[in-house]
């Protein structure tokens, strides 16, 4: 694909005798929002760190913005935004000062299409930290610090943004603001976004495409809908008639409901059609792989 922003083939990672990634393959196109899901220890963070150029891989081919991250120079670095899980760095700096300072590093890499860095005050407003602009980082709450992390990741107006667990510790309001921000970035600025999360509802809401990483490789790749269809072709239809409740599983829910109305008309009440949610899908896929793994182990 010509506009592939990320292209990963046969990525392997081995720590000592342990294989964390056993052959990861995927690609991401310009402007896509991709969510990487997977149980703890599946290698999500490792994968992201390889793509960010923070970690050397054991084997495989990786291209990020057309460059091998292991050999990415500063010009390449300037096109990428990384949202770190910060802890207590720069505690003495004031919010606005730090953002302006870090933004300064991007100035030499501005292009006619992408002004760099972003205007600091607008950015503070975007992440909702205008009131805290003069505060020292040490005095920020966990959620405020997290929003500053996001601002730092965005200050260079990146073409590709990496977010590792971006909304951990957000309250529902900040979470929704953050989701709006992600949509705006991808719609208005064509920013490509790769994020990891544990929150399946978040993944479903944000992602154009979901990748599930388990046992060191990608075991599912598609939209939430496609994944649901793949795991279970059936939807569940529930209804009641004369106070009696019915449940029916069918691959063609629309057709079934049409029939239902044709046959009983007004008698049909409490109609409900339920497809497998991302959570059902995720559990099914993760479970299926655990079982396969167990069978493989016991077969040995």
């Amino acid at each position, binding site marked *: 694909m010509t506009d592939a922003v990320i292209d990963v083939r046969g990525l392997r990672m081995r720590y000592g005798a342990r294989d964390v990634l056993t052959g990861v393959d995927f690609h991401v196109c310009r402007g896509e929002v991709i969510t990487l899901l997977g149980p703890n220890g599946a290698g999500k963070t490792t994968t992201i760190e390889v793509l960010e150029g923070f970690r050397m891989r054991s084997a495989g081919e990786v291209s990020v913005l057309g460059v091998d991250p292991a050999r990415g120079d500063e010009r390449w670095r300037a096109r990428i935004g990384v949202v*770190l899980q910060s802890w*207590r760095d720069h505690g003495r700096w004031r919010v606005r000062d730090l953002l302006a*300072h870090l933004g*300064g*590093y991007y100035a030499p*890499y501005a292009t006619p299409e992408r002004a760099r860095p972003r205007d600091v005050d607008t950015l503070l407003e975007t992440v909702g930290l205008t009131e805290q602009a003069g505060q020292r980082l040490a005095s920020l709450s966990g959620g405020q610090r997290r929003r500053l992390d996001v601002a730092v990741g965005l200050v260079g107006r990146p073409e590709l943004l990496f977010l590792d667990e971006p909304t951990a510790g957000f309250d529902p309001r900040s979470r929704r603001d953050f989701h709006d921000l992600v949509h705006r970035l991808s719609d208005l600025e064509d920013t490509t976004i790769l994020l990891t999360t544990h929150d399946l509802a978040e993944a479903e809401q944000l992602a154009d495409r979901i990748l599930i990483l388990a046992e060191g490789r990608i075991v599912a790749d598609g939209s939430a809908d496609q994944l649901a269809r793949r795991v279970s072709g059936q939807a569940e239809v529930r209804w009641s008639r004369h106070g009696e409740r019915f449940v029916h599983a069918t691959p063609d829910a629309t057709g079934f409901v049409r029939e239902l109305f044709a046959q009983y008309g007004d008698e049909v009440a409490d109609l409900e059609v339920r497809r497998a949610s991302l959570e059902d899908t995720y559990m099914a896929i993760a479970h299926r792989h655990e079982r396969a793994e167990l069978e493989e182990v016991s077969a040995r």
Partner: protein
Amino acid sequence: MSPTVHTARLGLARGWTETRHSLTNPQDLGWNVFVVTVFVVVLLLQRNARVDGSALPLAMLTLPSILGMWVAFAGYSGAAGTLAAEREDGTLLRAKAVPQGMVGYLVGRIVSLSLITLFMLVIILVAGLLLLPDLATAGGSDWLVLLWVATLGLLATLPWGAVIGSLVRSPNSAFGLTMLPLIALTAISGIFYPISALPGWVQGVAQVFPIYWLGLGIRSALLPDAAAVLEISGSWRHLETAAVLGAWAVAGLLVAPPVLRRMARRESGSTMEARRQQHLQRTP
């Protein structure tokens, strides 16, 4: 503007900001006041003691020696401690994630460590001169000597501190690996008592390391020329001072960059997270 000049300017600005933060931080200021108080008490206790075979008060030898020792502590221990702490807290990872950020970080740290050291030297010197007004006879060339000795001393110690800070696993080990050897070397380097009172082999060991030469160099700047008779071979030995400090500086500036690069390459979110967990276990 070339990217290098641009980054250097960001680094300078960063160093200045960090310096301001340190000089206005109650905790840092409290530590500085404590250090100066300790030195003043030492000088007060030594005020009436005379150096053997001389009319000079011992305190007059000790003040310049303390200044020399402080340069070594600030350069070596200061660099190691801040680097180790800022690897643990994620400052370095943050710098790594922006283009040229590591260079900006290092320039900033060199600037702030140097400025804070300079600030402390001035404070200790002023406090000392109030107690020992006889020292205030130093002329223009003497201050020049103080300046080159202190600058070369920083160059000789700071890169080695950065090496230690890059290699250790936690700020605690940085503290142990720098403070303990520094205290041991201070004891044998003629800082609080003339080195000539020590056995010859100990004098030999002391002369391998920068602390002795920093003390000697600053004594040569602030003391009357006649006081040179109290030193080894009865001379200020400027040439040897420049040679030993220069050798440490050159070696340090050769060793530090590859070690720093290797450290920077290995910084990642998960290594930082691991250190964070270690830290949380250390401090219940």
